[in-house]
């Protein structure tokens, strides 16, 4: 497809009516390692696969706490994610100072969407190359899961998966999401791990070093479950039979995903 002429600036439309720079930014999200999220009537859970550049390096943090009641999972350019996280933390803090109550996540997320959109309509900037799964619990409206995209579109989901090989995760979630509403916190975490297990590379596996879970819920501040704390859940997963069996059926169907695991070190 001859799309090269129209893709150098974000302010240039292609003849098909597309902003190619924005679409390329969305590709960047697909290169990041997998991140899943889901919610029940009482909790929202995030799961992420932490990538490490080499055996000598640590695993890149994928889940960031924004406030007591909001956290994000990232896929794509980590530096862009940190910049957004910093802004979100600041907004939440300011809101708490002025209004005395936690920031409604729906408001934060719509402002986040506006922030993303601005970068798609200015000559001097570029879109953010990261997708976020925003998990929150609002007192007024309950648990929420939102997904952001470099285009500035924000949608709310019952469950979602982003990043490399996330299609397996999505397939698992589509199959099971109806049981999430009534699921307990632990069940929800198990679902997250099973969805993640399908997103691991062929010969890899989900371990306590590369797995990461976060939970937020009614009366429960946003909390990370990693390392040793994650082991009991991984043990339970192994008892069930790994969980990878469920998820790898549709891997071949997704044309957009490629096995470029270690090509870009900037993305995790």
């Amino acid at each position, binding site marked *: 497809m001859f799309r090269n002429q129209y893709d150098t600036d974000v302010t240039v439309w292609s003849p098909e009516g597309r902003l190619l720079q924005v679409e390329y930014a969305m590709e960047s999200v697909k290169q990041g390692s997998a991140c899943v999220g889901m919610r029940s009537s009482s909790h929202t859970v995030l799961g992420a696969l932490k990538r490490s550049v080499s055996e000598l390096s640590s695993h890149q943090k994928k889940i960031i706490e924004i406030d007591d009641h909001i956290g994000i999972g990232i896929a794509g350019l980590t530096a862009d994610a940190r910049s957004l996280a910093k802004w979100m933390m600041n907004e939440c803090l300011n809101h708490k100072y002025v209004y005395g109550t936690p920031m409604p996540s729906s408001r934060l997320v719509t402002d986040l969407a506006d922030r993303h959109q601005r970068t798609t309509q200015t000559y001097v900037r570029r879109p953010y190359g990261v997708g976020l799964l925003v998990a929150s619990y609002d*007192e007024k409206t309950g648990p929420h899961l939102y997904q952001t995209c470099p285009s500035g579109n924000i949608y*709310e989901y019952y469950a979602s998966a982003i990043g490399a090989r996330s299609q397996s995760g999505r397939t698992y979630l589509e199959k099971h999401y109806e049981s999430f509403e009534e699921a307990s916190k632990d069940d929800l975490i198990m679902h997250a791990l099973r969805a993640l297990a399908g997103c691991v590379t062929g010969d890899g596996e989900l371990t306590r070093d590369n797995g990461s879970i976060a939970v937020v819920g009614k009366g429960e501040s946003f909390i990370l479950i990693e390392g040793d704390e994650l082991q009991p859940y991984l043990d339970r997963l192994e008892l069930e039979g790994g969980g990878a069996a469920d998820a790898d059926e549709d891997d071949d169907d997704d044309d957009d995903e490629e096995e470029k695991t270690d090509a870009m070190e900037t993305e995790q």
Partner: protein
Amino acid sequence: MSLSLAPGGSAARSSGPSSELDALGASERTSRPIVTGTSVLGIKYQGGVMLAADTLCSYGTMAKYKDARRLLEANSGTLIGGGGEYSDFQAISMMLKANAMEDRCLSDSLYDEDDGTTEESAKEVWSYLRAVMYNRRNKMNPLWNDLLVAGFDKKSKDGKPFLGFVDKIGTAYEDDCVATGFGSYLALPILREKYRPDLEEGEARALLEDCMRVLFYRDCRALNRIQIAKVTAESGVIIHEPYEIDTSWDSEAFVQSKGGLDEGDGGW
């Protein structure tokens, strides 16, 4: 419109008298109130919160505006009452109305929510006013008001009645009975003695009326034409029309002054 601009407000930016001051490096600050309202009283009762204020705005010693409205609606669930500089109170009221409009217009939720939950609760309005008043105080250009905020602490079915106080230096507190100005000396002790959590609406109103009568007797900037307003869970904000309260000047203390000093030094 922002009430937290640099000293001089928006006048500083337009051409006119203050631009000359600007050229000199001087600025305008509030140093004393000109048109003032006196006390505002507030009390919680069974099922809601009630405020009372007279309808006088004084111009120094002159009782100039005898139908001034000092109890106003900030949003559909919040009432504010103000003493002190009336123009500052009007500015605050307009600012809160603009905020309420923005809340209603901002499509915060990704769903259609028209149940008023996106509006600020009374507690959030109180906290916001605290932030504004304190900010202005720090710039040595205060909004010269004592404010009472009445409503509920949450925009939900199980919100508890809320009654808060903010003054011109940003002091903020909440209580079952609050009063500003002279009311804090003369009326508050009466309110506190007679307060019960299960006060009925009629009892609360009679209590406030009695206190307003005492204030008319003893506060020389008060008027006997008063206004009552309330916030309830079912009906929201209701501001009643002003009415005159009867007074009696034939009690002993007013007729026969102490010590029989009618002739002579005019003792009271």
